[in-house]
């Protein structure tokens, strides 16, 4: 039961973050510095998610396999400009490095 309560509250929290700025209107122009901060924020949060995931995967500090896999994903993303190829490269890289004992 508490599973569904957690999911329900999580769903409400998520929906509020998405809906409130579209429903409540703010008056006036946004200051330039705030606009630039907001512009930079998504890439910062997603990069933070990546960094946290590389450092500690499944509550175990990385032995290096995740760093290698991430580097491979960056290289393939920059080279092929394709998200799927990059993700697959990251998975293959991590699996291979873990098989080597990292």
């Amino acid at each position, binding site marked *: 039961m508490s599973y569904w309560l*957690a999911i329900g509250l*999580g769903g409400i929290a*998520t929906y509020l973050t998405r809906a409130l700025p579209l429903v409540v209107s703010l008056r006036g122009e946004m200051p330039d510095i705030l606009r630039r901060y*907001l512009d930079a924020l998504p890439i910062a949060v997603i990069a*933070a998610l990546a960094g946290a995931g590389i450092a500690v995967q499944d509550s175990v500090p990385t032995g290096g396999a995740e760093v290698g896999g991430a580097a491979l994903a960056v290289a393939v993303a920059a080279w092929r400009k394709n998200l799927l190829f990059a*993700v697959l490269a990251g998975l293959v890289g991590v699996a291979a490095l*873990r098989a080597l004992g990292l």
Partner: protein
Amino acid sequence: MSLPRPSRAAITEGWPVLLTSAVVGATFGVIARQSGASVLEASGSSLIIFAGAAQFAVVGLIKDGATPIEVAVSVLLINLRHALMAASLRPFFTRTSLAQRLGLAYILTDEAFAMGIGWFRRGHRDLSYYVTFGVGLWLCWNVSTIAGALFGAGIDRPERYGVDFAITACFVAIVTLSARHRSDVAVALTAAFVAAALRLAGASTTAVVIAGAVAPIVLLATRRGRV
């Protein structure tokens, strides 16, 4: 069936992202199932929360015995970024009704934001690109969650195949593909290293929120000119 041009563009440009989300959605199904959730519970998470990173966090938190309130606060922190994304999309949603905006909010994900804002920044104003991509992502995510939860219970030790790394690899790839200026790279590296350091020092989901909120400030403090 022939789709209007912006909808077609959303599919032809967005299919790698949609495919990736299906891979990650299936991964979520597998991991949720292996953490003790039923197929219905895994699917419910994707329907009700519909936010990849937060859903993975929820699985981990529930497994660790977190209370529903702790789960909700963590989800709120992880998804606070959506408020900023919604705020940046708002100017392009001016000609919509309240009911339409409530619908547009439900399909707002990192991926839909990235694809949608890319479309609007190219000067387009119609919403069908964002809607087509957002609904497509919703379908891929929910169908693949069920598929992963149904078939995933049979996968033994998924970490052997690196499957548990899919969501992180996806974040890495999204950042790499969306970094256009040197300043983007600086913000991304700062955020990644701060989050990694905080995480290694023992912080949980707060590591992401703190690092994500601080990294852009560093940039604004060091560069006053155009970003």
